[in-house]
């Protein structure tokens, strides 16, 4: 009975009258549940003698919303004991209480769709499992397209969902009319029908998860606020609450809107970059002819609204263009309870609703709900262990898809805490993609104003954020900008995409959005040509750069353990190597320069700054003689690409730069112009001949000016990352974060030559790789050259396109670019042979070479030639070198 009281209280019946009856009617079943679950006493404020908190626990979860309870539920399922969940108010009293209740798999990236799909299945069976009614109704949903571009993006989504095995149909407008009685279809081009999408009552799901968790021994305490997290030597040791301290090994921050501040209040500050925005939805009274509860959810993204059936009427909200960020200065429980309705703000969405469903005009308003949601700087949630504090996990920043993600995200986080990594690649959601630099309140406030409308905005290939820009820049930024550079951003760093020649105008930002041939096509083509025939300069300062030094050979020992390649090379050598995890998957892909016997210069991709740092730190022995330093900010990196690069450099340094004197993959400190101490490396990240110059920043402008002046007669010009991308993809170079991730091994991407099994150190992942070598790889990185694809008229590939072999789905692309040399599109991606007997099949050369490959771009299949090695003709211009394939191959995006 106790539990019954608690449950109705937890769901704030006054605020949610509709739930009250539901909770009541399943009262008897709750009682039974209580009996078999050894429910501990649950503290509420009403109790005159609140149950004292336990003095210790294994894990403390902060936040009793749907995310927190999902984490508790999944941890308990995985066999964890001594789990304590603390909630400052009542369970599900934050954003969960006001959730619109839609569970949809229509999400921008695969991992998010996967999480939503899992959540969907979980919520469906939850009622059976717990006996708590969750209001689950499989309504299906309709994503509408008002224009061709939107329709393309829906078709792309459809082909991605098919890869995940999620049912979906692209339908005609008149089918929409059949599925939904109210939709005005006159201005529609088409729609995507997702039959398995569902609606639930979020507070009830929250309740059910809590009940199930309690059943598995989780202790839940309401009205208990966490003051701060205690940290000792970089490990969580306990949690100080207003009702006493709990010792614990793990802490999970699921505090939603409050997660940022909770992170800041920790002894060692934890950056949880999210910011709140007001979010509005409308509830109507029942229609004259009540809308059946199984009416599909409608997502009219061009109208920026969603609509679902709600108690015979509709529930409709949206993601407006001019969102209202809130709580920039901090927040309290009271505010979230008393958010004001703002009808004037809702007007565009109301108009869009009435345009979509004109017959609602005579429907009466019940309420306009203002429900604050938290958003992150890149529209993806924040998951995983924080870089600075061991045992401090975060799951927050759901970007208003909390209900859709909670189930899957909770599962992944629980796996992560249990096994050290989740069962899928969650790098796009990993909190380590952000650092302290994204923690500025002003940055977050501005960025979320862009992110929230972006949820429903049409996203075309290569879109960039427009707010929160110019945070980190190279010292050459202004110089490049005046020369026509157009910029994109990575990890807060501005990087040039391409250079618009003087006198040439590109389309305005909005008009340049396209799924077809972009307006910069010829510009990038000219830059690529210059890289091939003369010399180009690309500013690549955004790379993450670490220096590892030691008094003895500790640095070498550490790197030998972390890296698959052999680092015991002569001073001055550059080694491309992966840093692998125990499974043999890439945690990082980097170039390591041996500067001296005991000091190494490690160059990693831009967004590895936080991740790689914490990876190395985690494996670093606590030895005061061993020192790791982030020197990213100390160096400007210029990449000279092209056959004439050596001429430019030798003219500037009076040193011969020919391969005889300066072989590939070497690093020398030398002078360039007047500047001394420039680290010159013979590698380019693209497969073209050339050099990387690592220049102490105060010399950057000088060196750049000298290079440009001397380079004039060799036809030097600036180039951007788009040219680089085209060059590296046509040479079949994989990039970490896009092609490579923590589940990809070197053997799967043809890089066995970079794994030195016989070096004397047992490096991380060696055992797994040996086993894989024994058994054979079941997926393989391949290169697909599109044939019969009209660059002018056909849709361009991007990434995430399904790959078919003999009409059978075998894989997905991970990146693509137009190769100006081949005059074809090149896609990179992974394929795996379909399993015949349930066990994964091994990739054979025949599988790659014999078979008709096709790439599916928005539903249209284009034949492609599959290759395991790049075209050797591409390397013709280079003097043949043994280590052609050894050229570097990581780079940003």
């Amino acid at each position, binding site marked *: 009975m106790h539990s019954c009281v608690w449950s109705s209280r937890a769901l704030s019946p006054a605020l949610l009258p509709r739930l009250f009856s539901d909770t009541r009617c399943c009262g008897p079943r709750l009682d039974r549940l209580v009996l078999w679950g050894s429910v501990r006493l649950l503290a509420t404020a009403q109790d005159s003698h609140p149950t004292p908190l336990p003095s210790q626990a294994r894990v403390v979860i902060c936040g009793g919303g749907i995310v927190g309870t999902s984490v508790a539920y999944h941890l308990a399922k995985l066999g964890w004991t001594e789990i304590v969940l603390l909630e400052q108010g009542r369970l599900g009293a934050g954003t969960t209480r006001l959730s619109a209740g839609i569970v949809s798999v229509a999400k921008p990236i695969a991992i998010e769709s996967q999480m939503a799909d899992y959540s969907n299945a979980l919520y469906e069976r939850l009622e059976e499992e717990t006996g708590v009614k969750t209001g689950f109704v499989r309504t299906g949903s309709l994503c509408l397209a008002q224009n061709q571009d939107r329709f393309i993006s829906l078709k792309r989504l459809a082909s991605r969902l098919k890869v995940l095995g999620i049912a979906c149909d692209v339908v005609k407008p008149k089918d929409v009319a059949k599925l939904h009685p109210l939709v005005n279809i006159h201005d529609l081009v088409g729609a995507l029908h997702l039959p398995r999408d569902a609606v639930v009552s979020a507070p009830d799901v929250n309740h059910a998860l809590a009940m199930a968790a309690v059943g598995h021994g989780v202790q839940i305490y309401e009205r208990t606020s966490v003051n701060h997290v205690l940290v000792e030597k970089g490990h969580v040791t306990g949690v100080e609450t207003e009702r006493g301290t709990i010792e614990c090994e793990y802490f999970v921050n699921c505090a939603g809107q409050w997660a940022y501040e909770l992170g800041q209040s920790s002894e060692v500050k934890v950056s949880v970059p999210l910011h709140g925005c007001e979010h509005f939805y*409308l509830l*109507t009274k029942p229609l004259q002819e009540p809308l059946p509860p199984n009416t599909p959810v409608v997502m009219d993204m061009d109208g920026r609204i969603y609509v679902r059936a709600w108690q015979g009427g509709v529930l409709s909200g949206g993601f407006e263009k001019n969102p209202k960020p809130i709580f920039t200065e901090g927040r309290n429980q009271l505010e979230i309870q008393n958010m*004001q*309705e*703002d*009808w*004037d703000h*809702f*007007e565009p969405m*109301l*108009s869009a*609703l*009435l345009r979509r469903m004109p017959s*609602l*005009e*005579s*429907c*009466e*308003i019940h*309420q*306009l709900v203002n429900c604050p949601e938290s958003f992150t700087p890149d529209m993806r949630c924040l998951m995983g262990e924080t870089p600075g504090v061991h045992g401090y996990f975060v799951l927050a920043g759901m970007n208003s898809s909390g209900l859709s993600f909670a189930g899957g995200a909770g599962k992944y986080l629980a796996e992560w805490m249990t096994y050290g990594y989740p069962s899928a690649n969650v790098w796009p959601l990993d909190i380590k993609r952000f650092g302290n630099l994204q923690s500025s309140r002003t940055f977050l406030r501005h960025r979320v104003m862009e992110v929230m409308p972006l949820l429903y905005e049409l996203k075309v290939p290569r879109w960039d954020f427009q707010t929160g820009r110019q945070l980190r820049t190279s010292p050459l930024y202004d110089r490049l900008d005046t020369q026509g550079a157009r910029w994109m951003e990575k990890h807060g760093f501005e990087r040039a995409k391409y250079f618009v020649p003087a006198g040439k105008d590109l389309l305005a930002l909005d008009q340049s959005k396209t799924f077809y041939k972009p307006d910069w096509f010829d510009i990038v083509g000219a830059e690529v040509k210059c890289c091939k025939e003369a010399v180009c300069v690309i500013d690549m300062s955004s790379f993450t750069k670490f220096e590892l030094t030691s008094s003895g050979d500790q640095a070498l020992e550490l790197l030998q353990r972390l890296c698959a390649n052999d680092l015991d090379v002569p001073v001055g050598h550059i080694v491309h190597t992966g840093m692998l995890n125990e499974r043999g998957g890439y945690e990082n892909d980097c170039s390591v320069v041996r500067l001296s016997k005991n000091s190494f210069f490690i160059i990693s991709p831009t967004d590895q700054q936080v991740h790689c740092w914490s990876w190395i730190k985690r494996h670093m022995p606590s030895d005061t003689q061993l020192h790791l330093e982030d020197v990213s900010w100390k160096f400007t990196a210029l990449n000279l690409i092209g056959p004439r690069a050596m001429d430019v450099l030798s003219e500037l340094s009076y040193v011969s730069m020919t391969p005889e004197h300066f072989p590939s993959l070497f690093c020398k400190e030398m002078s360039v112009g007047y500047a001394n101490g420039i680290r010159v490396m013979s590698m380019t990240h693209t497969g073209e001949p050339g050099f990387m110059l690592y220049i102490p920043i105060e010399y950057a402008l000088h060196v750049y000016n000298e290079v440009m002046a001397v380079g004039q007669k060799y036809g030097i010009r600036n180039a951007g990352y788009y040219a680089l991308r085209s060059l590296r993809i046509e040479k079949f170079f994989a990039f970490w974060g896009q092609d490579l991730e923590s589940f990809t091994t070197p053997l799967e991407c043809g890089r066995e030559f970079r794994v030195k099994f016989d070096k004397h150190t047992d490096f991380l992942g060696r055992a797994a790789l040996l086993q894989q070598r024994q058994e054979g790889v079941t997926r393989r990185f391949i290169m697909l050259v599109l044939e019969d694809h009209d660059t002018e008229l056909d849709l361009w590939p991007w990434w995430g396109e399904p790959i078919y072999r003999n009409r059978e789905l075998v894989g997905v692309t991970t990146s693509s670019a137009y190769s100006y040399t081949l005059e074809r599109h090149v896609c990179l991606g992974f394929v795996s042979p379909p399993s015949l007997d349930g066990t994964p099949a091994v990739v054979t050369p025949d599988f790659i070479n014999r078979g008709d490959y096709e790439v599916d771009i928005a539903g249209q299949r284009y034949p492609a030639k599959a290759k395991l090695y790049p075209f050797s003709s591409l390397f013709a211009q280079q003097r043949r070198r043994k280590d052609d394939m050894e050229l570097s191959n990581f780079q940003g995006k």
Partner: protein
Amino acid sequence: MAVTCQLFRVICGRELGQIWAPAILCQTCCQFSHPCKAANQPNAKSYPRWHLSRAYGTSAARPTYYLTPPQVNSILKANEYSFKVPEFDGKNLSSVMGFDSNQLPANAPIEDRRSAATCLQTRGMLYGVFDGHAGCACAQALSERLFYYIAVSLLPHETRVELENAVESGRPLQPILQWHKHPNDYFSREASHLYFSSLRTYWQELLDLSTAGEQPDVAEALVNAFKRLDNDISLEAQVGDANAFLHYWVLRVAFSGATACVAHVDGNDLHIANTGDGRAVLGVQEADGSFSALTLSNDHNAQNEAEVRRVRAEHPRAEAKTVVKQDRLLGLLMPFRAFGDVKFKWSIELQRRVLESGPDQLHENEHAKFIPPNYHTPPYLTAEPEIIRHRLRPQDRFLVLGSDGLWETLHRQEVVRIVGEYLTGVHQQQPITVGGYKVTLGQMQGLLQERKARISSTFEDQNAATHLIRHAVGSNEFGTVDHERLSKMLSLPEELARMYRDDITVIIVQFNPHVIGAQQK
């Protein structure tokens, strides 16, 4: 032209014969070539107001075309001016955040003038609205001269000494005022020398009267400056000038008239000096966010009983009936106080003498010789201002100075509401709550779109004064701006415009409640 002349005659009936304003007092000489028009140049103050204005729909001169919204905007915005005052200029905190001003002509040329300036030798800012009648000459002179007189009156003795020494020894002068002028607000170059010498004479006299260490009282300084300038205008006309053009100019200034409404803001001290029927109204924000009006000046016209009593008391009992007749001074002039207007100040002999010795242009026009009826005991008119001092409070958000063209179209409460809502932005628009009412989505949408339309008209204007004028001219009976009406009012032909509206001049001074709050403590 003929049609309007005719129309005018019919409408004005016999009062036409009472025109006293000499045509020569009109600004441009070319008008003499067309006596008909000159005769019909309506005089702002001397005619009974035309209150048919709302019935223009039946007028014979109904315009046949409409202005587009951009055309309307270009007319409304032609004279707008904004100035932002830095909160802290390095020395002092400013209680003024900035001001917006604008004017819309009805007369051609416009007879209203405006001025705004910062006192450089003393603290504070000055704002003034001047409404001319019988031509714009007097208002023009006030807009150039009055602030110098005030600034000099406010100077401490030491500064006046310095000033005189500088002029004496030919050293460059420290500027006294920093003007904030719209490009259309001109200063006459020809008269500047004359004006300067009069001003210098004034400060020399002040030097003789004042002693070291004496700080002039603001109220007293304002009164002195007003009276002195009017006196100088009168004297200059009597003395004349060797330069024929200047001689003619000083006569035009003296024979035309102007009212003045001037505000002096120094920290929390606000002084309003008013002469005539301009008005200063303070916008006070109440605790609930709404705005109320606090009038800081008294109109000097027949509607003000105290003024009527004052005027009657200054003349023999026998004149009691004639001195204020048909709500006008001597049956002719609407404002009971004004600068210039020597026809109401000089003796008949003096007027005759000056006119006879004056330039030839004066003789050619019979109206110049017109003497007001029942003119027995001049002067009938004074320029002495009424001073009202107000200590600014944090809830005092803005001050509206306007010529009577504004106040007769909009009630002061309405003025304050429009400006207040504009300055605080739409956020102050009462939020809608559904509460327990039955509202359909369609009704709500209609309501919201209407509100949005209202907001967008607010944001058409970057200038509060423009926004206010837009309402003054274009408001319909529901209090919202009606484009059709606005378009009609603005496209009236020059000679008709004056019948439907007067020149409107507005200055809106915005205060900084934080600074005022801090200084209060």
